[in-house]
């Protein structure tokens, strides 16, 4: 088994007031280990310690106890940060910069050379559907647009570890779908993704493993398939079944089980339905203002 990309051991963090008196225990005895190519979800209600854990992992907060290793080093090591892409909980970008300037600044801090930088920026803006924003300043962007720029910033260095804090917050369903697709594509390329969210559907769609936090303590942890499996409960999916065959099947099952099972028609989830409607509307009426149709995954990320 390869070395973990990220590991925490018995991590603890208590927020204190001015007089160093404990105010809130945000994280308690958190032990995680993320393998390469894995999408790991941090779940929990508001105030459960998800964002604090991420800030500890990034070295923005100092743990009271425990140990964090990212790529085998301290998270405060600058070399480690070259391999991390981070999308904060709130995309507080510089409002007086335009999208390109904002990405250029981030790329410069990663030491990406100017030619490569411009190429990557073009690719990323295409990818997040903001290539048309031109000289518009970020201060004029909607929350969703700013979030997309935040995502582009998190990916500009082609990171090995991507940390996404509530990545779909403020995004429309199209954007949400795209973020999820990006996460899956990154994982397929062997990148590790740490995702924090309280939107369960998002986590369920993309994560391999999850950890549920409550009051800073891990309440459940493991592969999502195992955690969501309901014992002694099976599901049967059938397509194009005519009424006669359906009755025969029901009679057969009634004979076998001793009681008549209930049959219900399958339903699409709302996200799939929404995406279909918008795709059709796009075909009929063309692009609306705001974000445009997102492009493919940036070439340098493929």
């Amino acid at each position: 088994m390869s070395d973990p990309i990220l590991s925490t051991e018995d991590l603890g963090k208590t927020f204190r007031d001015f007089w160093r008196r404990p105010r809130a225990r945000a994280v308690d005895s958190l032990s995680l280990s993320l393998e390469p190519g894995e999408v790991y979800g941090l779940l929990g209600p508001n105030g459960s310690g998800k964002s604090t854990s991420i800030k500890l992992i990034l070295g923005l907060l100092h743990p009271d106890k425990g140990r964090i290793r990212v790529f085998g080093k301290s998270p405060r090591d600058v070399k480690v940060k070259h391999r991390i892409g981070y999308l904060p909980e709130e995309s507080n970008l510089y409002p007086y910069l335009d999208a390109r300037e904002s990405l250029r600044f981030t790329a410069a801090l990663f030491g990406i050379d100017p030619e490569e930088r411009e190429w990557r920026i073009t690719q990323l803006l295409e990818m997040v559907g903001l290539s048309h924003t031109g000289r518009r300043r970020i201060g004029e962007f909607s929350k969703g647009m700013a979030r997309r720029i935040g995502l582009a910033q998190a990916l500009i260095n082609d990171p090995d570890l991507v940390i996404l804090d509530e990545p779909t917050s403020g995004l429309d369903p199209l954007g949400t779908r795209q973020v999820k697709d990006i996460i899956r594509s990154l994982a397929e390329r062997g990148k590790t993704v740490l995702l924090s969210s309280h939107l369960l559907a998002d986590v369920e769609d993309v994560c391999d493993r999850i950890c549920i936090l409550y009051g800073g303590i891990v309440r459940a942890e493991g592969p999502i398939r195992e955690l969501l499996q309901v014992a002694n409960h099976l599901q049967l999916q059938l397509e194009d079944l005519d009424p006669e065959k359906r009755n025969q099947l029901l009679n057969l099952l009634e004979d076998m089980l001793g009681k008549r099972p209930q049959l219900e028609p399958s339903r699409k989830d709302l996200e799939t339905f929404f995406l279909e409607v918008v795709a059709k509307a796009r075909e009929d009426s063309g692009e609306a203002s705001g974000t445009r149709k997102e492009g493919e995954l940036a070439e340098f990320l493929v």
Partner: protein
Amino acid sequence: MTAFKAILIHHLRAMLREKVALCMLLLLAGLLMLLPSSLRDDGSLDGALRLQTQYSMGLATVLVAFMTLWCSASAISADVANKRLQHILSLPLRRSILWLGRWTAVILLSSTLLFISAGVTLFRIHRSVQRYSSQKEAATLLRARHLLFPEARDYDQLAKEFIEIERLKGSVPDEVSDESLMQDALAMAQAQSTSVRGGDSLDWNFQLERPLRGILHIEATFDRSGISARQLPGSWQILDERGQERWASEEQVSGSGQVFIPVDPIPADLTQFTLRYRNLSPDPAQVLFFQPGNGVRLVQPAGSFTWNLLRATLLLCGLLALLAALGMSAGALFSLPVACYVTAMLLLLELASGTLERAVSEGSTLVGDAPNQWVERLDQLTIGTYKLLLPILQPLNIGNPLAQVAEGIWISNRLLWGSLFLRFTPLFCLLALIGILLFSRREVASQS
């Protein structure tokens, strides 16, 4: 270096696009263009020069100082408040680079604005030259000079000697208190040391760091007893350590005023000498009074007014660099209002450093007697606090360089480079070190 450059360029752009900084830039432009037009000078080049240098440039400096204060204090604290710092520090960037990059951006902008202000001031002065004065007057006024002052006289010692002599003569009445006697004796000693009767002479001793070069002038400011249109004959001499005359000149003075006497040729090897004025009037009642303090001084042309103004601007930039360092460090540790307050306090203390220094040397802030013992204790406490502050403030006390420029006094190398490298640089290093160390240890994300 790439990260430093990125932070520098980014912060320059941020400051130029920030509304507060933009408002201050507009105010500065308005101040430089409109204020001199709205103020009336006295119609002379000297007046215009003082107005432009001390008022326009002085106010521009204050405005730039406030802009520096705001930009430096908000450089980090605003990013903490807006939660932008979390993102920046998740990038591969050392906090020291962030601190230094932003400080450099602040000081680059402030210095550029200050030098632009100096350029506008110079442009306006040169326009005033064309309007008001002859080329000869302009050549005199637009020339900065070194001022060489004689050694200070020990008036206390002279007063004591005077009291001793008077006591020996028996001319001191018993009912006169020692304090009052000393006050009178001091006034007498001062009068005697700055006045010369007919037939008498008065000496001033000069100790110079290096031999004199170039054209030298004696600048004497005086008054004379009585109202008389008659010329008062007198002679000036320069005597070396052995009392040998090295240069002499005769000069007639009338009324009160100022005379400039060229010393030519200058005794090139002299670093210690005595300047003597002899009142050649046969009448002892014809007394010449020199202004106490700077009644007699030597003046040596040093450089052009332009260079002098630029040197003063450079000196002010050094002070702004310190202000920016304090603002950055305070902003890295505290919220924006607190950081602004701390930095503004330094600015105010710097402006008051001369007053504090005087208060400490005089041992009291009170004029006259303390009304009661509590006031006296409070005064002692204040002086004690000033004494604690003085080691920090003394290096900041560079006087008023713009007033010096307006008076045509050369900003000496000692003041300029000494202040920049020996006073400001160590203080800057200290402030930067404390700021960066504490910032590096600071948690930048609070409980959300």
